[in-house]
């Protein structure tokens, strides 16, 4: 079992390794372990942008033994919400951390000057980052470090762009260029610690305790992944496959959710992107699916004939929603340019899109003026949005300083809360499907659609009571705690059933029954809820933007009464649990 925790102290430029078999035995890895490490290392009252904040990266016991289990959980205090920050990413991160010999990495303190960190097996190097600081383009930062550091093909490189340096509260950490610890502002936490990048490489091996069984179970999982339909959707069109179905269900948030159906959805659909732009597909480490879809965008130079530049841009459903329909952008080239700009600075695409959508409506309504926005923001107008993204990074006016702190904060200052689409401080994901989605955003531990897949429950069951909805969401989120402790890609949740997981862990000398796995999920859920409450989470402080109740969803117009009843029931459940 991989039980080493690497603790890096940026205050003193020191590090130590702790072996914690009991921690990994009880909590598996990933989310389960990260919650405990946060408890041990962080003062819950810490200011998220102070040296007191802590970053945990945790991997699971299935990495790198099996395919489709190569995700890393990052945990920190979120500068966007002031509460629990948790974000997951694929790429090569988990496999590289495991190859260096670690189950988890904890980063504490803050450097006085910019640095980047290199973890190589049992050594940590604190590298001078002053030259890299101030380079806003995370793609360029990646390229420079790639030239200087060995480990091609096996290393991971997590880094921030300009947005993280400027402490934009929804800046992300990019890994392997196209995957992100996207949500809740890990980039700003890196920035506050003057940490530009974290590179991890190694070549450690692990041995199964039952060689024959290990190869058998491996083949079984590999076969399902390749031959069954379990992952076909992600394989072919990628997550962008969702655009047309959600639009048809009237669940695709459009123009700041003034509507839930976008008349140009087809133009920015997974099908259209695949037909006209798809240039290449790539995969996370140890994943046969290759759901990462890269669009090739060929841009001419207006005044120089026969000069073109062709850029590759990673697209996913969430980006198409937030920088497409949400902003009224129906032209594929425009959409791709926006995605590319967001990628350059290292911003979270969902939060950026929602902030810009709110700003557009705020300008329409006259609660802010062009002296604030510096540019005329209008739904569908790409040039205005490209400039506004630059301004979120540059923060040339008070308005952009506030907008860089999230849509809830901006609406607090300027008004327009009723159409500021955030839940628990986190900007909304792209599903206006109904009650389960809204409740998922509100009570999900990360306020993320992936916490409990409310959007999916809305599509499967239409007649649930408030209480049933809450029960189903808690059940799903609890099971996902197990998955994100292993750490399995949620897209492979159909493959990694409790039975398969139990079987897969056995030859790795981890004996746990399917039932125990489910129970463990409940326990981790409770532990996380406790941590969240310690960090100051208060259900009574949650507010819901009125817009949610105005624009009809898949379930028609939503009633506040239903949501209130559900929240009352959840309050009771939570109290019992804690």
């Amino acid at each position, binding site marked *: 079992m991989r039980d080493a925790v690497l603790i890096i102290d940026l205050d003193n430029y020191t590090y130590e390794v702790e072996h914690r078999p009991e921690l990994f035995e009880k909590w598996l890895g990933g989310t389960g372990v990260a919650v405990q490490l946060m408890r041990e290392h962080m003062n819950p009252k810490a200011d998220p942008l102070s040296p007191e904040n802590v970053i945990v990266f945790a991997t699971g016991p299935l990495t*790198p*033994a099996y*395919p489709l289990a190569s995700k890393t959980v990052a945990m920190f205090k979120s500068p966007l919400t002031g509460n629990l920050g948790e974000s997951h990413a694929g790429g*090569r991160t988990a*496999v590289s951390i*495991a*190859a260096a010999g670690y189950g988890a990495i904890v980063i504490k303190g803050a450097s006085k000057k910019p640095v980047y960190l290199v973890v190589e097996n049992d050594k940590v190097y604190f590298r001078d980052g002053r030259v890299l600081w101030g380079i806003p383009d995370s793609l360029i930062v*990646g*390229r420079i470090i*790639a030239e200087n550091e060995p480990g*091609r*093909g*096996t290393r991971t490189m997590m880094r921030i762009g300009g947005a993280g340096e400027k402490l934009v509260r929804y800046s992300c950490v990019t890994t392997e*260029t*196209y995957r992100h610890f996207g949500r809740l502002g890990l980039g700003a936490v890196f920035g506050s610690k003057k940490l530009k990048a974290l590179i991890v490489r190694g*070549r*450690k*091996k*692990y*041995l*199964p305790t039952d*060689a*024959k069984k*290990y*190869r058998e179970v*491996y083949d079984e999982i*590999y076969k399902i992944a*390749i031959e069954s339909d379990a992952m076909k959707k992600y394989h072919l069109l990628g997550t962008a496959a969702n655009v047309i179905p959600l639009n048809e269900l009237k669940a695709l948030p459009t123009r700041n959710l003034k509507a839930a159906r976008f008349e140009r959805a087809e133009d920015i659909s997974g099908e259209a992107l695949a037909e006209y732009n798809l*240039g*290449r*597909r*790539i*995969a*996370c*480490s*140890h*994943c*046969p699916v*290759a759901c*990462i879809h*890269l669009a090739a965008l060929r841009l001419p130079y207006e005044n120089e004939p026969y000069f073109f530049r062709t850029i*590759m841009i990673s697209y996913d459903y969430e980006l198409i929603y937030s920088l497409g329909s949400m902003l009224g952008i129906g032209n594929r080239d425009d959409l791709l340019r926006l995605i590319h700009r967001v990628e350059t600075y290292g911003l979270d695409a969902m939060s950026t899109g929602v902030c810009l959508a709110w700003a557009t409506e705020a300008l329409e309504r006259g609660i802010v003026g062009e002296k604030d926005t510096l540019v005329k923001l209008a739904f569908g107008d790409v040039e205005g949005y490209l400039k506004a993204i630059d301004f979120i990074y540059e923060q040339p006016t008070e308005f952009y300083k506030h907008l860089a702190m999230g849509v809830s904060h901006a609406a607090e200052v300027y008004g327009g809360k009723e159409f500021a689409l955030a839940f628990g401080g986190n900007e909304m994901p792209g599903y206006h499907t109904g009650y389960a989605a809204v409740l998922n955003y509100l009570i999900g531990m990360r306020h993320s659609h992936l916490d409990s897949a409310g959007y999916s429950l809305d599509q499967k069951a239409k007649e649930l009571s408030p209480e049933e909805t809450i029960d189903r969401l808690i059940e799903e989120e609890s099971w996902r705690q197990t998955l994100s402790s292993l750490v399995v890609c949620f897209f492979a949740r159909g493959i990694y059933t409790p039975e398969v997981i139990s079987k897969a862990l056995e030859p*790795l000398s981890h004996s746990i029954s399917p039932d125990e796995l489910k129970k463990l999920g409940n326990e981790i859920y409770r532990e996380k809820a406790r941590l969240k409450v310690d960090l100051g989470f208060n259900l009574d402080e949650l507010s819901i933007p009125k817009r949610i109740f105005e624009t009809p969803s898949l379930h028609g117009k939503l009633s506040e009464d239903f949501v209130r009843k559900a929240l009352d029931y959840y309050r009771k459940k939570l109290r019992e649990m804690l």
Partner: protein
Amino acid sequence: MKRLVVEDIEKCVGCGLCMFACSRRSAKNPEIGNSSSAILPVSLSGFERGATVIFCRACEEPPCAQVCPSGALKPKKGGGVVYVENLCLGCHYCVEACTLNAIFVREDGKIAVCIHCGYCADYCPHGVIAYKEVEA
């Protein structure tokens, strides 16, 4: 004779399943991770530009065997090398000698080199590599 070959490098998605398969190749002692892997897919400065898969191409006159001071690497009939692990000093002269950088250093300091067993080819989900008969 059968060899591991690259069929279509443009389809490489960089998943590294070949690399992990290589570590598992021994039925008796499969390993988890990449320590003993003798194949490495890498990007051309980012996978958006494409990939290359690095492994031994089974040279007729293998330079790695020529510089091996202990007889751990011996030329194989028809090309490539045989690796006798217990003779390996871990000097890495072979690593330096290989023009393709196709000899890898394991965690324990010894080396890993492709012996064209073909195990990895079964795990390439996109038909990038194949194990097939070629003319000697």
